[in-house]
């Protein structure tokens, strides 16, 4: 429905010219982003605070959003990193855990929400056309949809950008300072729940900026290094890829999401863009070594390409929906990674065992 739109009305314009009118909530903004969708039915707070969504305008397919508000404990980072949120219905909170409304969180972090959108239409559209550059107009000023489409087209997008550099911690910090194992986390946009899970596995957790080089990391004498999740194109984080190449074999490595792609690239595999990415909490992944199936939390637009895998790498997990690579391990060196999110948040915890596996790897 691209009918007549009041010029001051809020809307989302896709680069292909499709317009999605809505109501402006959160902070008034006018900005570009990569339009993606997420089909999870809970966990909007974890999504909006996940740094991996940096630069993206995320449409939630679930019908009612904001219902349980937001709280400090469920933040996956210090702030909101995505560019904008698009929802069907935005609600005030009703939960004993809530300390702030979702609307309030967006106002305080100066991010826009476009509410009242038929996000199913947007999801179906993105499913057909693939991820698109988009312009979110939600500042109450006048802007014609045509201009917005032009702006969306003109926006260069995220491909090739080192997005991790935008979201990584500026300085190293210690998440937990007790524990048997010392883990250094290379922060490309790490979710706090990865850190929480490591701490639960008896790990002392040090988080370092993604620009940290291998010798600096090895100087911390880690028992293991975790390559975190993060936003954007893995080929954009050249520094980390180099760093990982040097760390391989010297210290056990676990990679998650972007970290998985980085491990792949460091070992000589290639990555490519998925048509519309995996964003949701319900993807079945088969563990090829055990035959077990896990329901996983997913959020990625890029994937390691199976046909590009060097012989050193062995696929350990595959996505049962589309057969894409979901996990791999090095055949000789202590390194493994998964494309999905064993730390959940949001989503199921079926793959929590991977942190235990990392701990065992560090024991050896």
């Amino acid at each position, binding site marked *: *429905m691209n009918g007549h739109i009041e010029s001051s009305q809020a809307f989302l314009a896709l680069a292909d010219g499709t317009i*999605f009118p809505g109501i402006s909530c959160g902070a008034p903004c006018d900005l570009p982003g990569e339009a993606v*969708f997420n*089909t*999870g*039915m*809970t*966990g909007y*707070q*974890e999504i909006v605070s996940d740094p991996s969504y940096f630069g993206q305008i995320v449409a939630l*397919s*679930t*019908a*009612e959003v904001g*219902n*349980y508000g937001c*709280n400090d*404990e*469920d933040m996956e980072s210090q702030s909101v990193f995505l560019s904008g949120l698009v929802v*069907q*219905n935005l*609600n*005030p909170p*009703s*939960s*004993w*855990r809530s300390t702030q409304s979702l609307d309030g969180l967006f106002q305080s972090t100066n991010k826009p929400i476009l509410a009242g959108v*038929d*996000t*199913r*239409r947007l*999801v*179906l559209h993105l*499913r057909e056309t693939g991820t698109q550059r988009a312009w979110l107009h939600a500042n109450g000023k006048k802007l014609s949809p045509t201009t917005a489409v032009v702006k969306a087209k003109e926006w260069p997008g995220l491909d090739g950008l080192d997005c991790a550099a935008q979201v990584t911690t500026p300085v190293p910090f210690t998440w937990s300072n007790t524990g048997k194992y010392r883990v250094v986390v290379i922060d490309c946009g790490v979710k706090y729940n990865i850190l929480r899970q490591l701490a639960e596995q008896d790990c002392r957790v040090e988080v370092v900026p993604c620009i940290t080089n291998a010798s600096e990391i090895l100087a911390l004498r880690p028992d293991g290094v975790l390559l975190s999740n993060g936003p954007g194109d893995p080929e954009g984080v050249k520094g980390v890829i180099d760093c990982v190449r040097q760390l391989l074999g010297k210290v056990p490595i676990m990679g998650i999401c972007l970290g998985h792609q980085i491990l792949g690239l460091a070992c000589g595999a290639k990555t490519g863009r998925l048509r519309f990415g995996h964003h*949701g*909490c*319900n*993807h*079945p992944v*088969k563990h090829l070594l055990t*035959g*077990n*199936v896990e*329901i996983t939390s997913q959020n990625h637009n890029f994937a390691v390409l199976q046909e590009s895998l060097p012989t050193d790498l062995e696929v350990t997990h595959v996505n*049962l*929906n589309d057969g894409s690579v979901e996990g791999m391990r090095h055949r000789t060196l202590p390194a493994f990674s998964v494309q999905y999110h064993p730390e*959940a*948040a*949001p*989503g*199921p*915890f079926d793959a929590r065992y991977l942190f235990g596996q990392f701990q065992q790897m560090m024991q050896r």
Partner: protein
Amino acid sequence: MPKRTDIHKIMLLGAGPVVIGQGCEFDYSGVQACKVLKHEGYELVLLNSNPATIMTDTEFADRTYLEPMTPEYLREIIRRERPDALLPTLGGQTALNLAMEVWKSGVLKRYHVELIGVDAEAIQRAEDRRLFKATMDSIGIRSARSESAHSLQEAQVISKAFGKWPLIVRPGFTLGGTGGGIAHGQEEFEEIVTRGLEASLNHEVLIEESLLGWKEYEMEVMCDKRGTSVIVCSIENLDPMGVHTGDSITVAPAMTLTDREYQAMRDDSLKVMRAIGIQTGGSNVQWAVNPTNGERLIIEMNPRVSRSSALASKATGFPIAKIAALLAVGYTLDELKNDITQTTPACFEPALDYVVVKMPRFTFEKFPAADSTLGTQMKAVGEVMSIGRNFNQAFQKAIRSLETGHWGFGLEPKQATFDALDDNALESELARPNADRVYQLHTALKRGWALEKIHTLTGIDLFYLRKLQELTEFETTIGKEKDSLRKAKQLGYSDRQLAFAWNTDERAVRKLRKRLNVLPAYGTVDTCAGEFAAVTPYYYSTYADYDEPVRNADGKKKIMILGGGPNRIGQGIEFDCCCVHAVFALKAAGFETIMVNSNPETVSTDYDTADRLYFEPLTFEDVLNIYEREQCDGVIVQLGGQTPLNLASDLAAAGVHILGTPPDDIDAADDRGRFKSIAESAGARRPPSGMAQEAEEACHIASRIGYPVLVRPSFVLGGRAMAIVNDESELRRYMAEATRVSEGHPILIDKFLDDAQELDVDCLSDGTTTVVGAIMEHVEQAGIHSGDSACSIPPRDLPDEVLAEIHAVSSRLAKELHVCGLMNIQFAVRHGVLYVIEVNPRASRTVPFASKATGIPLAKHAALCMAGKTLAELHFSKTPQLPYSAFKEAVFPFAKFQGVDITLSPEMKSTGEVMGLDWDAANAYLKSQDAAGNRIPHEGGVFLSIRDSDKSTVLPFLQQLASNHHFDFYATAGTGAMLYANGIPCHGVFRLAEGRPNLRDLILERKIGWIVNIPAPGDDGAKMRHLAIEFGLPITTTAAALQMAAEGLANVIADVGHPDLCSLQEYHRMLK
């Protein structure tokens, strides 16, 4: 892992008759299982006593037994069939309990039958409260503090130890929480415990700390033998703990849990499954969550497919029962495909981009004496589900799906009743969970009551209260401009509500809407929130931007079939069965079928049934929208009961092509004046009658035609407010009440034909030729609603000339009424004279029973006739002659409604039916009694109290009973005197009011196993029948029933208790 090849023959258990707590959802699950297991190449043996099920159609199993669902019959079937495996998880609690009994008695072991889908130990861990609690403790999951008691004394010790009220009392091993309750004090506690001990199969009650006001959730879990588990759906109850989940308004997905809370609940649900030892299949786990601190306790888990799994399947598009059946035979989740996408595996968790609301359907109007407060004992007889893009839309659609006369949340005339409550009354109503609380909420919100106050009174989460407040605020601002109208539709308002707001009519709103281009869009239930393309056409309406394109299948004609909406007394699974048959027949004949229905329990709302499914309210607006969108060639309205018929005239006036008998003729049959002349032209004799608008007129008519008279409002189904009236004062009382119920329709008054034999006839006409499908003779005499009456095919003793007249009159009536399709006629035969009582040119409740008994698929044939086929083309030319007998018996919900009079009357009260089949009529009758739970013993004490007018009639039957020396007679004075005079020994007993020992004492001493009470008006019969219900004893209340029972018992005793068994397929083979 592929399917098992070491088993070949699988025995499946259905759920038996529809009762409160166990509706037609188990036909839905059973049908799915049968279809898929047959497709996998297994040989299937099915036991289900309910003839109104699709699963008992002969093509769904290799051998179908319509026998009583008792361990004795199951054992005999197993002995006869020697199945390799027994699958008990798809037939509700009935099937599970039955499977446990044959497991415990060693029958399964003896005949080498493997229990598949679940093992007996797991069932015990889940069902035995103590074991369950211990298992939960062992995995660190908290359950409510509880203790079990096996006697009242034990219970009292426990309640003292708890030291606080209220306490929850739940009986172990029952259906739908029968006999449970919330005790707020000592007296109530004793009452509920006593009842609960009686209701429990293992004479156990559980006394629990109260979680009143906590939030309630259900998780639908599936797992396979590899241990892969998924949550199919989370369901959140709008009504907090304290209201049975079957009586609660529920919402999917869960709305008010943070991801962290949700995932913890998910993990724990899976942990529970594993700890209980569920190997494969679907289960549900229920949780209570403290809204103030998130503390979470487990309530229970069902190790089987349940009512909520049917709901979850319809809500998500994930076919739980089908998958459960496949998992039971060895597949794993990753090997199975998601039906809806057909590309991704079934091993995933569905994502919803809409909101689903389920609302329970109550029928308190049928049981005015029952307490309408909702508690832990389920009282709903049906439910509706609706789908919308926001909570409000789904909520309002659900209200109008209920067909209780409400059009939505506010902006409707019926709201006035609640607006009339004063503040105090409103406050106490809100604090009392009840069927009308939704409307009371509206009143409170309109009065501007603070949400916090309403929350305190009701325990309903603020999320929902705010949503509803959004509606009450919006309703004052609705404008006729496009934006406002669109917003109103998005919030779920019906055209009718808008018409009410603007003081215009529905058609005017529709016109305006169309002019402004405010049209519904249709979304797909696709399991994945749009992530993958959906193949299965399962739709709901919304007012979103994106509209699924209409699919047109290469020039096929499109026929829409309107379903029956929520189950209620008088309209249930029987009509859904007819609708599904129509779909099957039309599909097979090359038509494109479109099903519209709002009842999640049904087979008709399986996306596998029709070519396209619209899960929508059955209202003029919603149906017409679909008709116009799909450009249907015609609509079938005569198979779904009163619901679609009520829409027929309006739809026809709006240009809809109604197939089959014209709506005007259907109306004519219901219109006393018009029908009179039709009957006259058809040469059909009718009892003298009249029609009155008010009391004076009614009295005048009654005195003209003579008392007793049968009175009822026109235009109702299930005999609502129908009564036999013996004198003028009764008539005046009746008129005062009935004119209110009938909403302006006149009251019909008929001469009541006492001592007449009643017949039900279902016939079929193609518009030219009419053939009687079956003649059913009622066991009870006229005056009891046909839906409540036991009946038999063939009729037992009708003179040939009466039979001939039935055929002739039926044909002439069909002609006069221009019947194309089905017609049901009720006849009465009195002193050899045939009267027509009532004619309904539509599917009747007896069609499935008649079809099953005769092997003639009446509803399928009817659909094809409506689509243009002739009976000759269908090779149906004469009434089948049965070399065996089929009895239908009704099943009643009296045990659920304490204090309700169980006397049968012209007003229908039964919820379901069973069938008894045998080569011998009396045996078939006895089987129907066994199947209905009225299990007449083969020996022991019989209490007899027979009214004077029947004493001589029953004497030979009693002599027959006495002759085989299996029974001990106890009789009241008059009956005893009669027995004594005829040389039959008996013990004397006082009437209840006369002295001791009376019947109650004898029952308590366990001396009585069967009550035979043929009451005279005004005696203590009602009390005796209560005792029978209270103690679960079989009762026989008519001379005709006693005769059948006596004959049957003589046979059984002669056969030393071995029932004769035969499958439906074998019976049908004997038909000529």
